[in-house]
């Protein structure tokens, strides 16, 4: 279980689940006459029904709707943000239902118990497909069986004489066929069959195939609608200026009257930690709010996460590097202290990685509309609609079921749209819409987003390892210093800090990994691959140092340490083969440049990944030419989406390795936009080669696991090429020697 899952499990209890026909239970909502099938949790049906009686038709708590015209609408428990989940779900359900995935319309389901598979609901942790795979198959199979039964009744034939082909029930003996659309209403009246047989994997037509994504054409024509594009009748636009340092509150507004008189300005508002202007157009609201001369108070002493005026990331890094251990133990095997004592050679190193912003290209926004009946509609980017609904209800002071959550597709997320303190615009939008008595669309400018995003943590990792006379590691001792997102009790190491440092597969007999917890005043968030995003860089970089110190080739050393780990060894061999055979270099490439390669492994989100990168130095900067990735997620649904996600992960991992860093001085982030916080551009993108290895192990994640291996593979290649071992990212901080 990864760090995110751990939290959500704490939030809600898991429960068994089986399909029930919600259309028989009054859940039809707007889709009267359609077959509506959902997974209701036994203990939760009553609660859901109750809610439905309070607000009839408010939630269409269903997954599958077969319309009279044969179209299939699928309510997704997961939000689409580029990772391809809507297409994957259509493939899985379509496989069992016997409907071509291309004829699905997939939408993000509203909050409600029906979509809390396993007892909780969020999009993250690279878990959408693997956590819903069985459920979605059973739903599709049950719906197909109901259609068969309806056809059998209509034709007065035994079910056994009937079969299906995509979109219709057929009677092979007579050649008679009934479309699913014709049967939907009758099927909806049937009880949901139990224990319907699932299709044999050998008969799969769509699962395992590179089905085209359902959203690609719209997205290529500007037709996809994100929250920022939503328009509501009568809405006004709002922009905010946050306290420069978190915890400050707006004092006097020196030029309030002047700003109030600006063109289009409707009103000026004081919000917790911010001021806002509501206007007829967002541009005018923004001009006005940024013209406001606000004197901000100093944070009250007890304010959580208050940003001190003297905070700097440089000082933080130094503080973490010198914070005393031993920390909270996350892993312990053997006797590392004794092994270090008896080692032929001890190697020590300290690594660090910086704060990062998510940098999703769609700035956060929310549209809030209060309705005459006291209910509230919210359109907002979110990765967990029920949690947002609950918090929105608290902010609004109304019952949870009176908040309708609409979840348009996300213009990127990477962990940005979880609920974080002070990092989501919706509470401000709720307050503003109430204050002005009209719907309000609030957009955070990119500059405000840089000020309030929940960041990938800054962590320092201290390593000590012992080598024997053969130069093989016998002991490794790791202290990760800092903090990460999470809700663990104070005496427990944070999963988000130690994942990817503890429980590595290498045969090092004596080892300890610990978290030296040092909180600091930055709002921390989940960033694509979370702790792995830096821990693979720390560990795999240090492992290359051990290889060098022990006189071993880093690839050969890994193979040796994985002698008893066939899955990892196979993967490492696969990536070596994919790259044309391991060669570290330096060597001279065809274009005459000097190059070298680095290798790294990671085990993120129940998948296994091996990565090789090839680099050169041009004009003192690192150029990455090729990245080879072998990934073993156990089994997959769509190889094209897997390859796209791995390639995307390589881009983001490389971006973090080369370029990205949030720097604070005097309590302020130095970058407020992409001019001072560059991320990977097209000319910096390497060729990416992906090999998918389906070992048959339990299904692992896809959206994030490609990230962690990239920074260490690149840094290890740079060390091989230049002799310079980089232990602090990003690489752009280092000027390398070398020419074209």
């Amino acid at each position, binding site marked *: 279980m990864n760090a995110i899952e751990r939290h959500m499990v704490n939030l809600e209890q898991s429960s068994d689940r089986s399909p029930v026909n919600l259309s028989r239970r009054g859940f039809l909502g707007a889709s009267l006459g359609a077959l509506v099938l959902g997974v209701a949790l036994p203990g939760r049906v009553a609660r859901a029904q109750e809610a439905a009686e309070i607000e009839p038709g408010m939630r269409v708590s269903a997954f599958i709707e077969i319309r009279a015209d044969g179209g299939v609408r699928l309510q997704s428990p997961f939000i689409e943000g580029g990772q391809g989940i809507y297409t994957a779900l259509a493939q899985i359900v379509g496989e069992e239902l016997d409907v071509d995935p291309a004829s699905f319309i997939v939408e993000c389901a509203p909050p409600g118990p029906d979509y809390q598979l396993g007892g909780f609901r969020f999009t993250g942790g690279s878990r959408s497909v693997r956590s819903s795979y069985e459920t979605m198959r059973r739903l599709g199979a049950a719906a197909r069986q109901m259609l068969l039964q309806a056809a059998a009744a209509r034709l007065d034939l035994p079910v056994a004489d009937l079969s299906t082909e995509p979109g219709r029930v057929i009677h092979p003996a007579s050649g008679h066929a009934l479309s699913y659309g014709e049967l939907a209403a009758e099927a909806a009246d049937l009880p949901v069959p139990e224990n319907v047989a699932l299709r044999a994997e050998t008969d799969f037509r769509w699962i395992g195939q590179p089905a085209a994504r359902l959203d690609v054409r719209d997205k290529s*024509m500007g037709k996809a609608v994100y929250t920022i594009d939503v328009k509501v009748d009568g809405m006004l636009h709002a922009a905010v200026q946050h306290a420069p340092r978190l915890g400050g509150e707006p004092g006097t507004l020196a030029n309030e009257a002047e700003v109030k008189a600006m063109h289009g300005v409707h009103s000026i508002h004081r919000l917790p930690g911010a001021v806002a202007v509501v206007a007829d157009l967002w541009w005018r609201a923004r001009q006005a709010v940024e013209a406001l001369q606000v004197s901000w108070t100093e944070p009250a002493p007890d304010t959580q996460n208050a940003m001190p005026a003297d905070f700097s990331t440089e000082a933080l890094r130094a503080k973490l590097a010198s914070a005393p251990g031993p920390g909270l133990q996350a892993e312990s095997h053997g006797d590392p202290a004794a092994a270090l004592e008896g080692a032929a050679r001890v190697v020590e190193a300290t690594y660090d990685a910086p704060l990062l912003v998510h940098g999703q*290209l769609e700035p956060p926004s929310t549209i809030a509309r209060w309705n005459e009946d006291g209910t509230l509609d919210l359109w907002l980017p979110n990765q967990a609609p029920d949690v947002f609904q609950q918090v929105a209800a608290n902010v609004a002071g109304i019952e949870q079921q009176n908040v309708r959550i609409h979840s348009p597709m996300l*213009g990127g997320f990477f962990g940005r749209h979880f609920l974080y303190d002070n990092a989501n615009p919706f509470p401000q939008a709720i307050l503003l819409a109430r204050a002005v008595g009209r719907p309000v669309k609030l957009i955070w400018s990119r500059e405000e987003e840089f000020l309030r995003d929940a960041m990938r943590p800054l962590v320092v990792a201290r390593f000590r390892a012992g080598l024997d006379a053969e130069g093989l590691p016998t002991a490794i001792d790791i202290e990760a210093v800092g903090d990460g997102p999470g809700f663990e009790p104070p005496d427990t190491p944070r999963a988000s800090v130690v994942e990817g440092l503890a429980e590595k597969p290498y045969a090092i007999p004596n080892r300890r990994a610990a978290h030296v917890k040092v909180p600091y005043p930055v709002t921390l968030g989940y960033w694509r691959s979370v702790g792995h995003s830096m821990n693979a860089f720390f560990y795999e970089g240090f492992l290359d140092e051990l290889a060098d110190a022990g006189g071993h080739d880093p690839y050969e050393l890994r193979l040796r340490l994985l002698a008893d780990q066939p899955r990892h060894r196979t993967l490492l061999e696969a990536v070596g083969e994919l790259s044309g055979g391991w060669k570290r270099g330096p060597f001279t490439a065809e274009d005459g440049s000097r190059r070298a390669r680095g290798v790294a492994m990671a085990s993120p989100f129940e998948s296994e990944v091996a990565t090789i990168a090839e680099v050169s130095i041009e004009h003192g900067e690192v150029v990455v030419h090729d990245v080879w990735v072998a990934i073993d997620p156990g089994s997959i649904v769509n190889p094209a989406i897997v390859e796209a996600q791995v390639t995307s992960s390589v881009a983001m991992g490389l971006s973090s390795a080369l370029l990205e860093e949030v720097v604070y001085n005097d309590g302020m982030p130095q970058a407020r936009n992409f001019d001072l916080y560059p991320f990977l551009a*097209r000319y910096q993108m390497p060729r990416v080669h992906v090999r998918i290895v389906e070992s048959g192990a339990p299904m692992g994640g896809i959206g994030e696991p490609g990230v962690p291996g990239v920074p260490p593979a690149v840094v290890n290649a740079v060390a091989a090429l230049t002799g310079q071992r980089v232990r602090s990212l990003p690489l752009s901080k280092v000027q390398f020697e070398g020419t074209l």
Partner: protein
Amino acid sequence: MVTITINDIDHAVEADEGMPLLWVIRDILGLTGTKYGCGIGMCGACTVLIDGQPTRSCVTPIESVGGLAVTTIEAIEDDPVGRRVVEAWVASQVPQCGYCQSGQVLAATALLKQSPQPSEEDITATMTNLCRCGTYNAIAAAVRQAAQG
């Protein structure tokens, strides 16, 4: 009042001097295919064509486009090259989150109208829009495919 020509239609809009074309397009004319990403001309999500030139509309003051032809993604299929680019984007399955892709498609269309057979250097020099999902290789493949088509 400023009169601007968007997708061959003249619009008289009440916009303040200095107001970026982006916000006129999005919030006054209601064409939301053009995106706000950074507001400082860095990312290119707001790319439109002005007299065929890819232009970052978030830093283009409205008064500077009077009398010029502005093309947004909504009109992409009115242009044969634009249609070809869209088909190549679909065939190469380029978009992930999709937020930057209106701008990418317009930038590619402008490139191919000026250089029907662009070199790799041409592609690198002109396709400068940012993509946080890292679809860059698919973008280059789609540009090459559209050039052949």
